[in-house]
C-alpha cells in the first residue's frame, strides 16, 4: 500500500465509500421496487448526489442538526438514520423511523440530529436557523445545516433565513445542492443569476462553490466552513454543483433532459466511481476491499427490504396517537 495523500485516513476513506455506496444502493433499490408498485406515495431519489451528503456529514457530530429537503434519503443515511428503519418508513410499516406515519418525504430522527426531510420547499432553512440558535445558546460549538435545492433557493424562507442567520451570527450553514433542475424547470430559466454565493454575498455572508461530484472538494470545503461556524465565525453558504440521475420523483420520464444526458453524466460524473478511481489509483485501498463493501451494502439493502416487507402495517389505533404531547 502506498502513502495516503488524502485528507482522510484509510478508515475514513472506507467509511466515506461505504456511506456513499449505501445511499446509492438504497436509492437504486427503491427505483426498482417503486416501478414494481411496491411503494406507496411519492419518492424522490438522491442517486448521483452522494458526495455532497457524505462529504459534509462526515464532519458532523450527533448533536449537530440538519434540515433536509424532499430528496432526503441521502441526508438521512449520511447523518446516521438507520437504513432498516428508513426502508420500513418508506414502505409505510411499523418500526419505520416515523412509525409509518410520515413516509419518504418526512423521514426524521431527532436523536441523530436529523430534523426531517420536508415536503415544503424552503421550510428547512428557518428551522436550521432555530437549531443554530439553540446551539449558540448551549455554547458547545454545535452547528446546524440547511440543505436546499437550486429551485427552492427562490423561496422567501431561504432568503429570509440568510438574513436572519447573518444578523444573529448563527452557527447555521446553508448548502445549496444545485443539480440544475427544479422539478422539470432548468435553473437557467428559474434562477435569475445561477450563483447562490452571490445571494449569500447580498447578506454579507461568505460562500464557496465546489464540484459536488468531487468528494474531496466537498469534504475539504465543508471542513473549513463547519470549523468556522463552530468557532463563532458565523453562517456561510456552500454550493455543491451536482447531478441527479433519476427524475424529480419516481415516475418522472425526464423528457426535459437532453437525450443521453443522464447516460453521459453516469459515465463521467458519477461521484462514487470518481472517488473509488482516485483512491484505488493512489493504491491506498485495494479494489477487493471496495468490492467487499459493495457486497456488504447489497446484503444490507436486501435485508432492509425483506424486513420492511415482513413488517406489518401500523395498527389502526396509530391514526389517533401523537397528535399532541398532551391534550
Amino acid at each position, binding site marked *: 500500500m502506498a*502513502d495516503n*495523500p*488524502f*485528507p482522510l485516513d484509510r478508515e475514513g476513506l472506507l467509511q466515506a465509500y461505504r456511506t456513499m455506496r449505501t445511499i446509492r444502493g438504497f436509492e437504486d433499490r427503491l427505483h426498482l421496487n417503486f416501478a414494481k408498485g411496491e411503494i406507496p406515495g411519492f419518492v424522490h431519489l438522491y442517486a448521483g448526489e452522494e458526495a455532497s451528503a457524505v462529504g459534509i456529514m462526515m464532519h458532523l457530530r450527533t448533536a449537530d442538526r440538519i434540515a433536509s429537503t424532499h430528496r432526503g434519503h441521502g441526508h438521512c443515511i449520511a447523518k446516521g438514520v438507520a437504513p432498516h428503519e428508513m426502508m420500513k418508513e418508506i414502505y409505510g410499516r411499523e418500526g419505520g423511523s416515523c412509525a409509518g406515519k410520515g413516509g419518504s418525504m418526512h423521514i426524521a430522527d431527532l436523536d441523530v440530529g436529523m430534523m426531517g426531510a420536508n415536503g415544503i420547499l424552503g421550510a428547512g432553512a428557518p428551522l436550521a436557523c432555530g437549531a443554530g440558535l439553540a446551539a449558540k445558546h448551549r455554547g458547545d460549538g454545535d452547528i446546524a445545516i440547511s440543505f436546499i435545492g437550486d429551485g427552492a433557493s427562490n423561496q422567501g424562507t431561504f432568503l429570509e433565513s440568510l438574513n436572519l442567520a447573518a444578523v444573529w451570527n448563527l452557527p447555521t450553514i446553508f448548502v445549496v445542492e444545485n443539480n*440544475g433542475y427544479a422539478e422539470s424547470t432548468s435553473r*437557467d430559466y428559474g434562477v*435569475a*443569476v*445561477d*450563483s447562490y*454565493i*452571490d445571494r449569500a*454575498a447580498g447578506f454579507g455572508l*461568505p*460562500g*464557496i*462553490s*465546489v*464540484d459536488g461530484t468531487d468528494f*474531496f*472538494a466537498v*469534504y*475539504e*470545503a465543508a471542513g*473549513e*466552513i463547519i470549523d*468556522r461556524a463552530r468557532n463563532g465565525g458565523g453562517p*456561510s453558504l456552500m454550493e455543491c*454543483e451536482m447531478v441527479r440521475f433519476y427524475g424529480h420523483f419516481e415516475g418522472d420520464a425526464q423528457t426535459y433532459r437532453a437525450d443521453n444526458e443522464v447516460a453521459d453524466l453516469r459515465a463521467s460524473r458519477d461521484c462514487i466511481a470518481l472517488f473509488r478511481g482516485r483512491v484505488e489509483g493512489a493504491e491506498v485501498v485495494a479494489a477487493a476491499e471496495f468490492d467487499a463493501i459493495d457486497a456488504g451494502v447489497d446484503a444490507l439493502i436486501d435485508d432492509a427490504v425483506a424486513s420492511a416487507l415482513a413488517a406489518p402495517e401500523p395498527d389502526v389505533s396509530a391514526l389517533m396517537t401523537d397528535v399532541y404531547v398532551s391534550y
Partner: protein
Amino acid sequence: MTGSEGVVVGLIVNPVSARDIRRVVANASGLQIAERTNIVLRALSALGAVGVDTVVAMPDRKGVRVLLERSMQRDRNLGRTLPTVRYLDMPVTSTVTDTHAAAGQMADLGVAAIIVLGGDGTHRAVVATCGRVPIAGLSTGTNNAYPELRESTVTGLATGLYATGVVPPLVALVENKVLDVSINDDEVSDIALVDVVASTDRYVGARALWKTGSIVELFVSFADPEVIGMSAIAGAIEPIGRRDQAGLHVALDPKADRRVMAAIGPGMVERLGVTDWSRLKPDEARKVAPEAGTLALDGERELELSPGDRATVTLRTNGFRSLDVGAVMSWAAENNKNLTDQQKNTDQ
C-alpha cells in the same frame, strides 16, 4: 480578421473564478455574476463604439451567459449598439476544459484578440491554447498577480483600436514570460503565468492554496511587490519586472530563522521562513525539490507528484502576447487617432 463577420474579438469570462475557499477563510472578494456581466457589457459598448462587429464568446452553464443575453436584450431595447455576440458551439463542462477549448477555437478562427475576465488561473488556461493570439486581461479572480485591475471600458477601447488596425501590433502588443513545468521529461507538462509553488502536501483537494506550512519552494516569472498571492513572497525579497529577462526561485522552510513578510492571499499577511533565493535565467531548467508532493500553478494545486518523479521549472520569455492598454491609448492620443472630421465619418 475580417470576413463575413467583420472584425472579430474573442471573449472568455470565467463564471466560476473567485468562488473558492478563500472567500471563507480570508474575506476575499467575490465578484458577483451580475458585476462580471456589467464589466462585459462595458467592454462590449467600447468595442462597438470603435467598429468591432462580432464578439465570439465561450458558452457557460452557470449564469454569465444567461444574464448577459438578458442584459443585451435590455440594452437593445434602450437603443444601444453592441457588437453581435456569438457563442462557440462546444460542450460546456464548467471546468477549465471549456476555457482550453474556447481559446483554441478562437485561435483557429483567427480572432484579433481575446478579452479575458478572470484571475491568474483563467488567464493561464487561455494562454495554454490561444497560441499567438494576444490577450487583454481583466482581473476578476482572487489572485490577480497577472491580470490588471482596470476599467473594462478602456480595455475594450484599446482592444478595439488594435483589432480594427488603428494601432499597430508593434505598439499594442508585448511579450510575456511564462514558467514551463515538466515532469519526467515531459511525460506531464504544463505552464504557469506567474508562479509555481511546490509543497509537500500530496493531494489537490479544494485546489486553492492557502496553507503555507508545507511549502518548500517557489518559482516566479516576475516578482511584483504590489500584488497578493504566492508571488508576493518573491516580490517582497527581490522585485523583478514583467519585462525583465529573469525570474526568481525561492526556497522556503517553516523552521528557518530568516522570515519574509508577504501578503500571500486576500487579507492574509504572513511571515514565512526563507532559506535561499536566486534569479532564474531564461531557458534554464531548474529542478524542483524532491520532497515536493504537489505543484500549484498560479495559486491552484494542479499537479500531484509521486516519489521518484523528476520535475523541472523553466522560464520562457516569449510565452504569450498581451495587449498593452496603456501604450495603445497613449499612442492613439499622440497620433491623433481619436480625432475625426465629420466628413470623413460620413464617407465610412
